[in-house]
């Protein structure tokens, strides 16, 4: 039995070695994708193009504007004189944030009245607008507190008046600088491996069927289980290799930390690869031609990718979609891979994901092997 499986293995690797385009597809797209995601995928908000209209021209208004100029979050690109100019700049998409300090600002401040400032946000990118709006709030609140203190001092109440101050000290665990890259790179490893393995498995078997070599194999003494093992084992090994390569790029090039146990990640990867193989096998039992396999892969892999928590929080999805994500192996693997990379947690925390992956792998593999044997008859 082992000899026959071994021979299948040798055949598969030989086939892969001689297929230039397959080798290319295996190596080049993953590397391009991890580089793209590492460099292009970011939700961070720095240097947002900003326009300021200081209509007050007083030390106070200039101090407030200076706070924005010196913040790394905003880049004051232009100074306007009227709110119409600010509005026009936003309409043209030259800037995404406009701040108008109206005339009479400092007068009202000194008189102890509410001094309004207008903030105009381009909401086209809702995420950037939301975060930038938060930073505007923070900067102006800090400014307001300093002003309040100096006003109290000026009125002679500084020493006696009660002063309430709560300093909030946020500490960001697992990703202290809130680097988007740390969030995306581990996720890319999971989604890339899924796509590669499902594609390889489905195509390899459908190709044998299409070309007619499947029947040739069936007349050899090989048994269905041996055939499946011999067919999938190479892809399993390739999957492990690919995880190693892409993880290596993430660690060495993008400097994403790995704080957990490599063994936990290895175990999770094995379970995940088994589920991916199961999906690929299932597709191969349904499709007759490579074209069909390609279309099916797209229709299955694309939803898996979007409903995995890769970039978009599962908690924000409508509830039925949230339930659906539970049947998605990628969702569980992403928890494991981010848990081991960033959080450094082990099985004591990740056991539900391991259990879910084990269950999914069992169901998918059993189902696909049963269907596959039937499709061979």
């Amino acid at each position: 039995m082992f000899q026959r499986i071994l021979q299948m293995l040798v055949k598969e690797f030989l086939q892969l070695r001689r297929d230039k385009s397959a080798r290319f597809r295996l190596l080049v797209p993953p590397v391009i994708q991890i580089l793209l995601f590492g460099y292009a995928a970011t939700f961070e908000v720095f240097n947002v193009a900003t326009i300021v209209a200081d209509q007050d021209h007083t030390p106070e208004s200039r101090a407030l504007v200076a706070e924005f100029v010196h913040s790394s979050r905003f880049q004051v690109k232009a100074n306007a004189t009227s709110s119409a100019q600010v509005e026009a700049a936003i309409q043209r998409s030259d800037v995404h944030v406009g701040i108008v300090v109206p005339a009479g600002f400092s007068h009202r401040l000194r008189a102890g009245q509410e001094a309004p400032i207008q903030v105009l946000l381009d909401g086209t990118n809702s995420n950037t607008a939301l975060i930038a709006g938060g930073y505007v709030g923070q900067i102006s609140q800090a400014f307001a507190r300093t002003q309040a203190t100096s006003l109290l001092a000026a009125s002679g109440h500084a020493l006696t008046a009660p002063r309430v101050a709560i300093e909030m000290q946020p500490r960001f665990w697992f990703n202290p600088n809130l680097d988007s890259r740390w969030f995306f790179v581990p996720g890319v490893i999971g989604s890339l491996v899924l796509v590669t393995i499902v594609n390889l498995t489905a195509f390899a078997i459908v190709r044998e069927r299409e070309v007619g070599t499947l029947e040739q194999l069936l007349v050899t003494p090989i048994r269905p289980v041996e055939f499946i093992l011999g067919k999938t084992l190479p892809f399993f090994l390739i999957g492990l290799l690919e995880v190693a390569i892409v993880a290596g790029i993430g660690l060495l090039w993008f400097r994403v930390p790995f704080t957990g146990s490599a063994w936990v990640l290895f175990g999770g990867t094995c379970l995940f690869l088994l589920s991916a193989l199961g999906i690929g096998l299932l597709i191969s039992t349904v499709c007759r031609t490579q074209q069909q396999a390609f279309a099916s892969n797209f229709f299955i892999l694309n939803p898996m990718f979007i409903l995995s928590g890769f970039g978009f929080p599962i908690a924000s999805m409508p509830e039925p979609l949230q339930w659906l994500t539970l049947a998605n192996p990628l969702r569980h693997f992403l928890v494991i891979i981010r848990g081991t990379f960033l959080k450094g947690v082990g099985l004591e925390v990740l056991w539900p994901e391991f259990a879910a992956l084990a269950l999914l792998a069992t169901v998918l593999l059993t189902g696909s092997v049963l269907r596959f044997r039937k499709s061979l008859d």
Partner: protein
Amino acid sequence: MKWRRTAAVARKEALQVVRDPRSLMIALLLPLMQMFLLGYGVKLDVNNIPLCVVDEDDSQQSRELVQRFVASRYFALRAVDRTVAPAARRIDAGMCRLALVLPPRLSESLVTRQGAAVQLLVDGTDSNTATIAAGYARSIVDAYATGLQVSLLQQRGYPTHSMTPLDVRPRVWFNEELESSHFIIPGVVALVMAVIGSQLSSLTIAREWERGTMELLLSTPVSRLELMVGKLAPYFLIGLVDAAICVGLAVGWFDVPFRGAALTLFGTTCLYLAVVLSIGYLVSVSIRSQVGASQVALVLTMLPTTLLSGFTFPIDQMPAVVQGVTTLVSARYYVTIVKAVFLKGSSALELAVPIACLAMYAAIVVALAARSFRKTLD
């Protein structure tokens, strides 16, 4: 170029599409799937973030502050602990995204020179959610502190007017509710166009090679320009129908505002379709197997459209080199146009730059595609 021959090729290609259920499935099912999947699955809004509180103070003030968090729609209180350890375990396990730590004697230190400090432990794994959540938490704490001070000053007879000196009045334009689906869905239209257009056209020439009908085709008097126009015309129509479906769903189902001129969108969609169809055609000419062609076409269009077009990730936040690369991505111009037409109601004149870039792009790829096909067998 003879219209009769072009029409004949177009008719043949159209018949082939109608009789090939797979192509039809891609043409009709894919836009529906993508719209619903991305419309519902891609949300960046942050509501009901699971929160746990470590109340080491257990005073009236600490409970008041916690109540502020409970009342906010941004947070969902999951647990209140007395020590940090169980809260840390919850964050580790991903059950809570953040923990608000209220230190002992918080209520006493509130009214001192040094002030009080509360700690916010945030799970930074999902950096975007963490940024937004920390921002919300800060504004709640700030508002609480200000309110408390005002009431204290009032009680003790001090002038209170100095306490809220700054009144920030934010106005959000184009997407007033900051609804992330309004930001995502117009981009989905571009994504669907890119995938469908290139997928369908990537099969056109490869199919002839694979089915062995190429020799037949080469023996006809059809010229390469007639061939391309005829082959792509049916897909152009399908693309327009798909665009109509997507825009209809965006406006009718997902309630995305459509403020611009339909004509601007129609014109630029035609340009963009010409680009993606030509790219697919170019791939089809150079790769002779259908599977290979559709795979290459998928990678060539889907990845740049998702990552490098400003569809979800803002281009101005990317490193300069990557920003340079995005100028070569046709989807970048189309995504800019679609979003502006939907949300900003921009006119064609305001969008002159991206429209000109897209038109130039279209002219170049169409010319390349028209020249790519050689009437030889090898």
